[in-house]
């Protein structure tokens, strides 16, 4: 049974060390930490972390966040606060794919020390396969919480990593509205090919979320919804409604900024 799900983006800059002296996006990091904290409060026996990766596969929980791949100077150990061990993960362990490493750090920062399941999902996985993975993860133990590391379009402006693609706006709105409304079926209809075009790497992970939620229609809290660098970052908490009459599918939350 799923106790709660949290949705966070997984850009490298979520790691405080990587943006240099300027925190750049403290509000994004705080929103992610709040979402991770929500998961702990749902009292899970295990937290599953899912993010996009080269392959669809599980990772051992003893991996580490590998920031030196993004900032080699951090490995020199001469920078103040270059706490590569800030994740609480084993320094000698194998590096995790970034979304999993960031997710583990968030859970560590939220104070979680319990059981973990780490899984990447590949972009070639179709909606049905993703949903099946989600259902399987949700059934691992009695109470499972899910942390989904997933990003929207990276083509939301002329200065975006992927330049501007106007299709980004309806696409990201479709995702956000589905999350906001707790409409998991809508996530399963996302166009994988369009998502690839838009560099929206989160598509398979969102569909894992949909599978994990199953028939439940969760109540959502949107904690962050912005694209400061042309990439859609969405932070949300989703709480399954286990009673017969869920209160609402639209609780509260932000909306996308005006188009450039």
């Amino acid at each position: 049974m799923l106790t709660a799900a949290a949705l966070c983006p997984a850009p490298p800059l979520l790691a405080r060390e990587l943006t240099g002296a300027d925190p750049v996006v403290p509000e994004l990091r705080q929103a992610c930490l709040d979402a991770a904290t929500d998961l702990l409060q749902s009292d899970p026996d295990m937290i599953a972390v899912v993010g996009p990766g080269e392959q669809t596969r599980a990772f051992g929980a003893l991996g580490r966040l590998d920031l030196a791949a993004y900032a080699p100077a951090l490995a020199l150990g001469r920078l103040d606060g270059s706490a590569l061990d800030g994740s609480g993960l084993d320094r000698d362990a194998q590096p995790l794919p970034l979304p999993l490493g960031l997710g583990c750090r968030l859970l560590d920062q939220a104070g979680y020390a319990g059981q973990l399941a780490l899984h990447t999902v590949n972009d070639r996985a179709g909606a049905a396969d993703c949903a099946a993975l989600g259902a399987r993860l949700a059934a691992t133990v009695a109470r499972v919480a899910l942390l989904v590391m997933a990003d929207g379009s990276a083509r939301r402006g002329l200065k975006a990593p992927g330049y501007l693609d106007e299709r980004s706006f309806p696409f990201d709105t479709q995702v956000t509205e589905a999350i906001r409304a707790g409409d998991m079926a809508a996530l399963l209809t996302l166009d994988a090919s369009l998502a690839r075009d838009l560099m929206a790497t989160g598509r398979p992970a969102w569909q894992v979320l949909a599978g994990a939620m199953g028939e439940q229609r969760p109540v959502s809290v949107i904690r962050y919804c912005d694209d400061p660098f042309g990439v859609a970052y969405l932070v949300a908490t989703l709480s399954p409604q286990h009673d017969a009459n869920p209160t609402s599918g639209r609780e509260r939350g932000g909306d996308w900024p005006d188009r450039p």
Partner: protein
Amino acid sequence: MSDGLAPAAQQGMLRLGNRAFPPGQPIVMGIVNRTPDSFFRPAVTWDETAAMERVHQVIADGADIVDVGGIPAAPGADVDVAEEIRRTAAFIGAIRSSYPDVVISADTWRHETGRAVCEAGADLLNDSWGGYDPLLADVAAEFGAGLVCAHVGRQSPRTRPFRVAYADVMADVLDQVQQLAGRALAAGVPSDRIVIDAAHDFGKNTWHSLEITRRLAEMTATGFPVLVSLSNKDFVGETLNLPPEQRLPGTLAATAICAWHGARIFRVHQVAESRQVINMVSAIRGDRPPARAVRGLA
């Protein structure tokens, strides 16, 4: 080390006044001349009001240390002890009143002046003339001030090099500055307040100054913090065939090399430009993070 960097572990904390500077935190020393006849922008801070404006500016531009000198390095009209003290001590007292925490350095070789400026609040005695007056180290020890131990070869104060030659200039530098540092330690100056300086142009021709720049890592490998004073000097001018007012790019190039080799104090005229170069090199070395990194990380 294969990358040409000195082993950082050998450098320790440097204490000046009530400030503590760890290795990897470069220090900029802004020059404020209380002279009518310095080689660079002569007399611009001869007037005391202008000099205090200059102090405000160098601190605003990012200087950690203000270096006050009352005598130019070049030969010229005699400046006796009384006149040197008149030019510097009260002014240092005024800086101390305005800036309780800034590190104040006095550029002098004389122990009498050293005593007067320490009483006025100086934290560092910047002896550019290689321990010519051995009593200066005793004054530094008495007041708990830092001491710069510089190499000048066999020059005496305010003389120009004349046909100087060294079998190995860097070996001579290392030998002399370490002897001076040993003398300072024996006089009671704490090891974390001793700085060494190759003293570009002092007792050196341009070839020598280029050589010590190229080999500065040998100085930082001693473990003593290294000060470099490169700013607009003749070795830059001769290398590029440019007059003093056009030597900033050359100065900054030499600054970058010295920063790469691990120099920790940079005595400069142009504080803001120097600070940019030093911070850039510091980030390349991996001692300092970028101010704001987003490219490719979103």
